[in-house]
């Protein structure tokens, strides 16, 4: 059984967790080029090494961040998202959108 440590619930079976994709910095949707937006949406860091990922503990719906090695599957560290996101991120709707 592979164990992941949830920052809220402690060590749990990894089958209780859901993978939520890599942590990526979102470009400003107001002035980003199509190519840069495509890159943000479709490309991930895919060389061998430590990756920064979103994970969710499914029974408690708690989202957090994990540092994991994508070849050895070693989970190096898990921590609450507020370590990375210190302030509220506001998503401004596009002007053209109704």
């Amino acid at each position, binding site marked *: 059984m592979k164990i992941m440590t949830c920052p809220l619930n402690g060590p749990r079976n990894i089958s209780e967790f859901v993978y939520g994709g890599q942590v990526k910095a979102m470009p400003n949707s107001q002035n980003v080029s199509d190519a840069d937006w495509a890159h943000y949406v479709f*490309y991930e860091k895919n060389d061998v090494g430590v990756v920064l990922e979103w994970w969710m503990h499914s029974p408690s719906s708690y989202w957090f961040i994990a540092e994991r090695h994508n*070849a050895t*599957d070693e989970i190096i560290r898990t921590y609450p998202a507020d370590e990375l996101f210190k302030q509220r991120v506001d998503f401004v709707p596009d002007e053209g959108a109704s």
Partner: protein
Amino acid sequence: MPLGLLKYGLSQDFPFEKDPDLPLPTDLKRQYDVVIIGGGGHGVATAYYLAKYHGITNVAVLEKGYLGGGNTARNTAVIRSNYLTPEGVKFYSESVKLYENLSNEFNFNIMYSRRGQLTLAHTDATVCAFRQRAEVNKHFGGRTELIDPTDIAQLVPTLNLNPANLPVLAGLWHKDGATARHDAVAWGYARGATQRGVELHQLTEVTDVLVSNGRVTGVKTTRGGIDAGVVIQAVAGHSALLAQKAGFPLPIVAYPLQAMVTLPVKPFLTPLVSSSALHCYIQQTSRGEMVIGGGSDPYPLYNSRASLPLKENLISSAVEMFPFLSEMRLLRQWAGITDMTSDYSPIMGLSPLENYYIDAGWGTWGFKATPICGKTMAELVATGGKVPELIQPFELARFDRFKQVNEMGATAASH
């Protein structure tokens, strides 16, 4: 025959030494017109069609391990074309047609066996999706129809029609569905290619791709450097890593996919059976073993390790579908690394480099595409970079233009 067998048994030297399927290893040359990185099915098929149809024989296939030892050996050998998108159906139908005649073409038995493939629907939404797939498939000349549970029970009497309390509502019956011996496909192509002058270099790993002014000039290998006119990469599972050596990223994420096989038993299951809700597919090989495969792992990993929870899941689904499988013993299990793209379609054709072509993003649909992939990639090289119509929708640049080919007929896709 018995006399021939006796002579064979008493013979001093084995016949294969006089007439080997593959030539003995040679030294690397300094220069090749075409260098193909990856000696799996796709790589050697490309070399074969280059030599056979285009007369290009100054070709080296570089393989870090052994011939067909990567994902060519790890797939579950399903051949089918009942996909969802017109682009996908046209492409895979051509592949199925090529497969049908491959043993004759090679004069080498690939054990092609047309069985028909049955995919089970357990929800109304899946029945709708299957109806669409059947119509798209028929439109492009495939033989696919929707059948009801009575027909399914006749076709596969051993199947449980209420697996895991998910009643089977209908089935997508694809008569062109088939299987073949995957190693033999790689060996058949490699034999045909090397007989025509192509060099296959096993245990030769490419460590770097040399680029200057937007062109590839050659590759560095563990056995020395090579100058190359054109380079093709066909390294399923490691496509993104190799592309990085060439200096550009690929929109690919690598996930492991686990499968297993039981001890052989007498033939009882003709069609390939797959459940859309249980994410489990089962077939009996020509040797009698039951091959059991499923969806990819739940998170990305560059590692072909196995995990017990996934194996347990897969076995429980298989036993739900065919309850008597619980009496059988597993022979072996394994995993392969699948290059998943966000639209479940491959990435083929041109790259940001002028003379470097990509054959990647083969997720869970690579084996069935081997012949048509080799044929179209060879055409691409022979015409100096003119992309064949059949693979134009699969270009790398589609991601930048938001023109994905949304292939929800892929096994890994949820229906």
